[in-house]
């Protein structure tokens, strides 16, 4: 299968080329199209920075990156990428439906492919049918994140970038949303890059988990979980093979910190 992301010797930093504080150094990473990749690492290891480079929100200092066979800028201009932030980033003055419809109102000018209004279908898919006219402050944290995911999916992106989207939620809600996200991924076939602090979440969701170390951010472990899971990336949280993989990831994470 073709790669959705191809990064080679990627250097990313802040403060310009000369006096840069390097956040990622010499990162090599390939991600298969249609796969689910979890990115795990301590604070400051550059997990979120990596997503920002893929989304064309940040330019790398060195190395090369190809996204869906093209430059990040071209992919962003085509609106082939969706982004879900840790806080839902819903606009508080817009109703739930209008938040999901945001991609219809902005950025359509340069687009050859017009986005269709699938807001009702997506709200139903995310279990939010009947919530369309509510305002974001009338929703729970989990519901707000569901709206953010629906908004990211409106443009039918080929690549979904998720930056600790469930990090601020309670464990029960987080587990439920993990299952919903996996169902969504199986249904849409979208490539997902999922940044998380949680070892259990990374192992449960990812077909593959990469662990980054900090100072500077670099890849120290790349664990393929597909042999441990059933078809469609299915497993239980208590599966001994998954628990063993979590222990392996914990060891890698301890080395990374």
């Amino acid at each position, binding site marked *: 299968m073709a790669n959705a992301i191809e990064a080679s010797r990627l250097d990313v930093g802040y403060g310009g080329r000369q006096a840069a504080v390097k956040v990622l150094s010499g990162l090599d990473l390939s991600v298969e199209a249609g796969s689910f990749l979890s990115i795990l690492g301590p604070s400051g290891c550059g997990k979120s920075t990596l997503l920002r480079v893929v989304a064309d929100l940040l330019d790398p200092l060195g190395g090369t990156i190809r996204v869906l066979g093209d430059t990040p800028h071209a992919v962003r*201009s085509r*609106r082939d990428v969706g*982004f879900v*932030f840790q806080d839902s980033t819903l*606009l*508080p003055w817009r109703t739930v439906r209008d938040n999901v419809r*945001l991609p219809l109102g*902005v*950025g359509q000018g340069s687009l050859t492919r017009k986005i269709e209004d699938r807001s009702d279908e997506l709200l139903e898919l995310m279990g939010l049918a009947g919530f369309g006219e509510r305002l974001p402050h009338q929703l729970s944290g989990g519901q707000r994140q569901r709206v953010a995911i629906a908004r990211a999916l409106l443009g039918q992106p080929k690549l979904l970038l998720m930056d600790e989207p469930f990090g601020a939620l309670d464990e029960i809600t987080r587990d439920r949303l993990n299952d919903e996200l996996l169902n969504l991924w199986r249904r849409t076939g979208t490539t997902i890059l999922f940044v998380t602090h949680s070892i259990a979440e990374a192992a449960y969701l990812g077909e593959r988990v990469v662990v980054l170390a900090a100072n500077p951010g670099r890849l120290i472990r790349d664990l393929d979980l597909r042999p441990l899971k059933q078809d469609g990336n299915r497993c239980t949280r208590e599966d001994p093979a998954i628990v063993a993989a979590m222990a392996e990831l914990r060891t890698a994470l301890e080395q990374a910190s």
Partner: protein
Amino acid sequence: MRPAPLSPQMAIALPVLGAASLLLAWQYLLPLLGVPAYIVPTPTAIFGVFQKNFALLMDNLRPTLIEALAGFVIGNLAAVLLAVLFVHNRILQATYFPIVLFFNTIPILALSPIIILIFGLGMTPKIVIAAVICFFPTLVNMIRGLDSASDNEHELFRVLSATRSEIFWSLRLPRALPMLFSSLRIASATAVIGAIVGEWIGSDKGLGALIIQASFNYQSDRLYAAIVLSSCLSIVLFCAVVLVERRVIKY
């Protein structure tokens, strides 16, 4: 532990009772204490002026209302437009915003004679003074409001390839509205102050002029009536702003 909140009925009844108790004390206690009527006339005497001189009060209210309203609209509109220009051109902001802030330090009372020298004795200088007094708080708040969107919100719009104009209309402006309305609420009172200050310095019409004339002629009941009317004007403008705010900001 925090005290339990008051019921809505009590929240209305208590301030009404508070005002009534103060008015009663003013009406009956101050004369008993020997405070002369030419210093503090009783509420009934002030109310009497509204009955006797209603036409005079309305004749003087009209120019003040026009000046305050025109100053409010012009001052706030200019502030909003300049704030939009500043947030879209950082060099312009860095160059001129400190100078604008410097002008804000000049007391309006010191600036008013100059404005009257420039614009003469008609309504224009009063409108300009009211506009100037509204301008600065709105400018500062509007700049802060237009810049108040979070980094994540800006990144969201960038991922969506939004244009600058789309970012302005769909993100920056709605984000700025709560701060804009908080300055408009303040400006609703300061616009009236600006108009009255302008009338003090060079006018024979308006509530400001009436206050000065009543003060010179020891017509304290008329003086107090003019003050009450100025306050009512500010309250009406304030309530109008709040009504619009409630229709516009629903979250």
